């Protein structure tokens, strides 16, 4: 955990922080309780946060339970990461009209409102960085992702509570938020520690006239985050990657996974780095207008592996292998780092609880 210039934010002044952000014309999004989990919801103040709630995650299971009554960030995360806020699940691209003067194409404008996201986790920041590399770095930047990303103000929260499904420590992405945020909070027994990660963050803190944090609070924060890392029970041994995954290409264990996998694509939908999408043409019945949209897609669908005249991945065995090999190995060759940030969402939100850390361990066993 990098030592930044940290300040004490008493619990009864937490709203002052939120209002200082709102005054800068940001819409506030935060994890709010919805349908037995937390989802990004618009809030006006801290009251709407998940006070006194904690999540209990396990393979294929998520429950909200009673947590520390004085805390609002005990829920580690819900199914959403930052992905849906920057890479929209359904993005209109072009409106096509067919008239007497031929075809006309109107591109959808790339617009976004200034939005502050409260309660972003370290794994989500690592995943956002990965998606930025894919969508907006380099020669071809996606205008929709770019417009949304530029309008985000990110208020991170250091994790002090790990789920049994979390393994960010082994992926080197958490549980402390190191960079990529405007502000970072650590929830303590008495209020919060707050530090800035950007100029805007510094300005917001300066506007609040907070006391600098002393050594005891900083030590409490350090210990809480270290204990969170130490409590993580799952891990991926990244030392052998990517080569060991390529070597496992014909491993019989893929068949074992396929016997359990539903090919439902939930893992890829909740994965904060998965970026597959399909471009669909949605014409009217009259066929004089059409909407071209981009929707989240997955390497687990029957259509995804279809190229002219042939399906490259007709069975679940090939699809799961494609996903895991890309995520943990080919991603390193392609983008310079693993595609897995260790958030564990794919384990929790898999309807039948398939655990990629266990599958990787089985696939990397030499004697299999």
């Amino acid at each position, binding site marked *: 955990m990098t030592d930044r210039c940290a300040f004490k934010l008493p619990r009864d002044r937490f709203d002052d922080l939120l209002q200082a952000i709102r005054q800068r014309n940001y819409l506030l999004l935060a994890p709010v309780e*919805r*349908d*037995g*989990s937390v*989802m990004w919801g618009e809030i006006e103040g801290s009251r709407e946060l998940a006070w006194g709630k904690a999540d209990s995650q396990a393979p*294929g*299971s*998520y*429950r909200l339970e009673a947590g520390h009554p004085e805390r609002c960030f005990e829920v580690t995360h*819900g*199914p*959403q990461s930052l992905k*849906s806020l920057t890479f929209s*699940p*359904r993005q209109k691209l072009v409106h096509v009209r067919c008239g007497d003067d031929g075809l006309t194409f109107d591109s959808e404008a790339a617009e976004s409102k200034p939005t502050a996201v409260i309660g972003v986790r370290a794994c989500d920041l690592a995943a956002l960085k990965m998606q930025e590399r894919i969508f907006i770095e380099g020669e071809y930047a996606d205008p929709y992702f770019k417009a949304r990303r530029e309008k985000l103000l990110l208020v991170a929260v250091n994790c002090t509570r790990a789920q049994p499904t979390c393994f960010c420590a082994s992926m080197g992405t958490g549980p402390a938020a190191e960079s990529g945020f405007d502000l970072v909070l650590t929830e303590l027994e008495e209020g919060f520690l707050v530090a800035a990660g950007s100029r805007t963050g510094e300005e917001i803190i300066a506007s609040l006239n907070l006391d600098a944090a002393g050594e005891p609070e900083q030590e409490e924060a350090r210990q809480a985050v270290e204990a969170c890392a130490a409590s993580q029970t799952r891990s991926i041994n990244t030392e052998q990657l990517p080569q060991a995954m390529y070597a496992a290409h014909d491993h019989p264990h893929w068949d074992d996974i396929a*016997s*359990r*996998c*539903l*090919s*439902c*694509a*939930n893992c890829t*939908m*909740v994965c904060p780095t998965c970026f597959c999408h399909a471009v669909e043409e*949605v*014409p*009217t*019945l*009259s*066929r004089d207008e059409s909407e071209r949209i981009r*929707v*989240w*897609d*997955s390497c*687990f*669908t*029957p*259509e995804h592996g279809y190229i002219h005249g042939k399906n490259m991945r007709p*069975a*679940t065995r090939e699809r799961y292998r494609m996903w895991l090999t890309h995520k943990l190995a080919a991603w390193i060759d392609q983008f310079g780092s693993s595609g897995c940030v260790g958030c564990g969402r794919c384990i*929790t*939100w*898999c*309807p*039948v*609880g398939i655990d990629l850390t266990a599958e990787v361990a089985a696939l990397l066993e030499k004697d299999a």
Partner: protein
Amino acid sequence: MSEVPKPRLAVFKFASCDGCQLSVLSLEEDLLVLGGKVDIAYFPEASSRMLDGPYDLGLVEGSVSTPEDVHRLSAVREQCGKLVSIGACATSGGIQALRNFIDLDVSAVYPSPEYIDTLSTSTPISEHVDVDFELWGCPIDKQQLALVLGDLLAGVKPRLPGSSVCIECKRRQRTCVLVARGEACLGPVTRTGCGAICPGMSRGCYGCFGPADASFPPGRSQANSDALALHFHEALKMDAADVVRHFRGIHGYMDPFKQTAAKWEDDG
């Protein structure tokens, strides 16, 4: 120059509740568009104007459940250039295909069973005649219907996704009812198309759109209903009889749901 005649459309009903025919009428504004593109020559549910065939395009609702149905369907096929079966009954035999799993005794239901001439099974249209396309759902989705009709009238091969309901649920940013509440949900093995209505109302999916991971022609779904059934039993503590009830529902006569239910019936 004489006007090119419009293609002739016919809508036929077999054993069904008429809900899918009503989906055609529910096209609302698009129904006027459709009327402009085709001559609706035969659609008894909608109009008493019933013109003789042949027809360019036939939509068939319902399953085959009587000896008379078998003959009538054969005649329908001969009269239609393209034939599309619409809805769960037509594509997989429907809820009435539950009779396929019992010894049918019509006297238990009808006071005068001598007037009833029925087959012991309810079967999909494609078991009897060649079908050019199948539109799934109980009932069908009107947007999918408009898309398929538009494609067929434009001379394009229709294409609908064969992926799971889960993808649509996640695109709509809904919380998974199976993972977060332990609701038995068939979404992971059910074909998308409904807009994930039931999970959106915090209920498990009933599987109205049939087994996922399927592309046309039918009967080739790879949906892993066995693994989901095992999960219902082990994690949701569902007994064997209840597992059978879940998979032997609206599409109980369609593999792999049929095979999964049969395995649990043997175990139960």
